[in-house]
C-alpha cells in the first residue's frame, strides 16, 4: 500500500463545523460501524476535502483493531486529521450525541410500555432477531480474526474460558499477552497484520466498484 501518495493536506475547518458534520452523521447512523463509511466519504472526502477515501479505509481497518467503537474510532481519526486532538474530540462528541439523546428520550417511554403483553411478545421475537444479528457479526469478524493455527487455538481457549464464566477482562488481557508471548517465544514468526489484510480487501471492493 502506498498510502503516502494518496494522502492530502487537510483544509482548515472550524471545530464547530466539524462537530456539526459528525452530529448529522450520528443522526442517520444505524447499525454497525461500517455504516458510517459512505457518509464519511461524502462529507469529509467530497465536500470538505479533509482526507481521501484511502485514508478513511485505513482508519476503518485500524479502528476495528483497537479498543472502542468502530464508528467512534473512525470519527476520531478523521477529526484528528482535520484539527488534531481537539478535532478528534469534537468529531466523537458529535457522532455519539444523537445516540445518547435518543436513548435518554425514549427510556421512560420504554419502561412504561414494557408491561403490556403485546410488547413482551414483540421483545421475545426480537430476542431471536438479536441472536441472528450477533451471529452475523461473528461471521463478519471471523475472516480476519480466526484464520490460522494460532488464532484458532486462542479462539478455542477463549471460548472454553468464557463458557466457564471466566471474567471477560481476564480473557481479553491474557489473549493479548499470549499474542505478545508468541512473538518472544518464536521471534522469527511474524504476526500477520489483519489490518493490512482488511485494507487489501477493501481495496478490492473499491476496484470492483470503480469497474
Amino acid at each position: 500500500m502506498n498510502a503516502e501518495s494518496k494522502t492530502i493536506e487537510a483544509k482548515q475547518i472550524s471545530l464547530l463545523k466539524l462537530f456539526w458534520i459528525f452530529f448529522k452523521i450520528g443522526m442517520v447512523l444505524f447499525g454497525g460501524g461500517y455504516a458510517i463509511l459512505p457518509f464519511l466519504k461524502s462529507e469529509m472526502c467530497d465536500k470538505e476535502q479533509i482526507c481521501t477515501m484511502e485514508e478513511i479505509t485505513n482508519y476503518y481497518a485500524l479502528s476495528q483493531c483497537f479498543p472502542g467503537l468502530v464508528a467512534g474510532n473512525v470519527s476520531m481519526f478523521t477529526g484528528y486529521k482535520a484539527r488534531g486532538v481537539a478535532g478528534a474530540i469534537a468529531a466523537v462528541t458529535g457522532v455519539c450525541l444523537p445516540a445518547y439523546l435518543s436513548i435518554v428520550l425514549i427510556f421512560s417511554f420504554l419502561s412504561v410500555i414494557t408491561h403490556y403483553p403485546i410488547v413482551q411478545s414483540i421483545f421475545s421475537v426480537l430476542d431471536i432477531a438479536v441472536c441472528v444479528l450477533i451471529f452475523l457479526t461473528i461471521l463478519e469478524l471471523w475472516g480476519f480474526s480466526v484464520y490460522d493455527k494460532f488464532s484458532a487455538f486462542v479462539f478455542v481457549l477463549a471460548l472454553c474460558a468464557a463458557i466457564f464464566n471466566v471474567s471477560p477482562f481476564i480473557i481479553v488481557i491474557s489473549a493479548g499477552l499470549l499474542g505478545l508471548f508468541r512473538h518472544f517465544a518464536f521471534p522469527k514468526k511474524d504476526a500477520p497484520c489483519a489490518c493490512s489484510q482488511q485494507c487489501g480487501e477493501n481495496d478490492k471492493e473499491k476496484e470492483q466498484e470503480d469497474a
Partner: protein
Amino acid sequence: MHNILLLAFEYMKIGAVAIGGGYTVIPFLYYLVEKYNWFNVAEITQMIAVSNLTPGPIGINMATFVGVKVGGVFGSLFTTVAFMIPSVIIICSLAKFLKKNKENKYINHIMYGLRPAAVALIGVAGLKIMNTTFFHFEKFKTSHNFFDIISLKALILLVIFSAVGLKLKKNPMILIVMAIVLGCFIKI
C-alpha cells in the same frame, strides 16, 4: 451516587478492552449482571434490540441505556463519557504515533491474540441469549412434554431471520422491524 461512580468505572474498563465495535460490549454486560445485579439478562437483549432501532453507534446506545437504568440521566452521562475516555486517549495517541511511524509490530502481535478472543466472547454471549430464547427447561419440568424444551416456533423464526439476515448483511434495521411486526401476531 456510589452506584454511578462504580458503573462509570466498570464502563471505563470495558471501553479500554472492548475491541471491534458495539457487539463486543455484550459479554461484559453479562459480567455486570452477574457482579452487580443492576439489571437482568432479559434486559440485555432488550437493550440490543432498542440500540439497533435508535440512531448512533450501538455501543453508545447501550452504555446510555445501562446508565439511565442505574443512575438516571446524570448516570447515563457519566457512563457514556467514561466509556469513551479510554478510546479517545488510545486513538489520539495512535493517530499521533502513526503520523511519525507507520506500524508497530508489538501492537500487531497483541492484536493477533486479541481478535480471536473477542470473537469467542461474542459467540458465548450469543449462545447465552439462545439458551434463554430457545430452551425452556422450566416448562419441561412441570409438563414433562418433550416438545416444551425446544420452542419450535422460535426455531422456525430463527431460520427465517437467518435467511433474511444473510441476504441483507448490511442492514440490521430491516431485521429488527420485521421482528417487531411478526411479534405483534406471533406468541412464542
